[in-house]
């Protein structure tokens, strides 16, 4: 069975990363990869149900649960990208002067400048909530708008409203010329966004294409795979950073 079904998040597929990687893998191994790009929650759900052969997501807590429940095996951290805080160029909350991301979020809440939240329990949304929490701020302030939509619409909404928004860099680069937003803050360590590739339990679902899934996982962490991840750029900007380390 040469078909591998990969459930992953929209960010990897929409950014063009998979289109950059997979042809080489397919050529070398003879497998064909069918990509089902959805939200992290749904991708893991497909994994739990045994409807896909391998998942690639970016929600550490949910992934840990997934492995712990016995549905996933062999989680490998293969790459990361980062989140950026976007805002109008006038910078009403004075983010430019903030020390770190927590300070920036505090300023947004205090300035009553708007903030658009995806509100869809996606990886990005989880991240944002975690930051609000560690900054010690309740999201009930007036400027906070949870819109329950994808990254693109969230940025467009923020752009229309002149509000701030937390976005992943890949999607931001794709949307950049449609937005009247700028990067207000980037590079903070807590804005890192790690991706894992996880195989599906072969005891629960013995008839899946485990050989293909393993081959894909192996190839992704191989020197060639890691190199190709680092080589991927949009507008000459690298998007993902290969992070696989051989387990100690």
């Amino acid at each position, binding site marked *: 069975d040469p078909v591998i079904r990969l459930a992953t998040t929209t960010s990897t597929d929409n950014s063009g990363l998979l289109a950059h990687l997979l042809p080489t893998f397919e050529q070398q191994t003879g497998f064909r990869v069918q990509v089902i790009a959805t*939200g992290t*929650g*749904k991708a893991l*759900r497909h994994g739990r149900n045994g409807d896909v052969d391998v998942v690639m997501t970016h929600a550490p807590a949910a992934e840990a649960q997934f492995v712990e429940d016995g549905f996933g095996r062999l989680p490998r951290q293969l790459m990361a990208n980062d989140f950026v805080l976007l805002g109008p160029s006038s910078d009403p909350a004075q983010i430019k002067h903030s020390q770190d991301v927590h300070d920036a979020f505090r300023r947004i809440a205090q300035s009553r400048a708007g903030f658009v939240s995806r509100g*869809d329990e996606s990886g990005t949304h989880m991240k944002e909530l975690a930051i609000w929490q560690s900054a010690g701020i309740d999201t009930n302030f007036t400027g906070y*708008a949870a*819109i329950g*939509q*994808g990254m693109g619409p969230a940025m467009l909404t923020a752009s*229309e409203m002149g509000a701030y928004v937390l976005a992943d860099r890949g999607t931001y680069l794709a949307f950049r010329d449609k937005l009247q937003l700028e990067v207000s803050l980037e590079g903070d360590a807590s804005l890192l966004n790690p991706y894992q590739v996880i195989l599906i339990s072969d005891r629960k679902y013995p008839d899946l294409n485990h050989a293909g899934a393993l081959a894909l996982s192996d190839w992704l962490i191989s020197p060639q795979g890691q190199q190709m991840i680092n080589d991927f750029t949009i507008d000459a900007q690298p998007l993902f950073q290969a992070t696989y380390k051989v387990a100690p």
Partner: protein
Amino acid sequence: MNDGMLSVFQQGIVLLFSFDPDVWAIIAVSFSVSLRAMAIILLPAILLGFGLAVSRFPGRTGVISLFQTLQAVPTVVVGLIAYLMLYRQGILGDLRWLFTQNAMVLAQIFLALPVLVSLSYGAFSSGDWRAWETARTLGAPRYRAFLTLCHELRAPLLVAVIAAFSRIITEVGASMLVGGNIHNVTRNIPTAIALETSKGEFAQAAALGTVLLLLALFINFSLGSLRNQQEGLRRG
């Protein structure tokens, strides 16, 4: 997920009768938007369908084809068109309607109009012209003759209205784009369902779908009395 379809359905019933204010806010947005859109187009669309069925003018079949074709424009695209009109630089940008219910009403008007026009064209074109003539000769002014014809054709017209309303009450692409799915403001049942689904909360999504189904059933059975009267095909 493991709790099967039946329990999802039960959950929907519980949700509906729990009077959860969040759920009812969503329901209110759905119905207020879609009913407003229907109210605005109902008469013009049916009149247009009537006109297309009974009149003869050059290009008539072209117009009919056009309305039928417009049904095949995906809702997202209709949403995009509405968006391009409403965003800050759009021709209607000054209205500042984006992300309001008005924007959703506008998009839903675009969506329902072709459906209602072409279905009521279909309904009228199988009608009997003598009904119109009889009404007129018995002294009915034009508007009453039209209403009489509508009454004679109430079964297919009712079906047409229900089809058009179903299209917009279940529509997600356009509402999401121009409404923005803002909690308590523009989040309606379909966008809420889309949100729950994207979260992987399938049970919650299905429960919301059940809510819509139950409300639709309720409306339908109330309209059923209208339909009851018509006793099969005309025999004379």
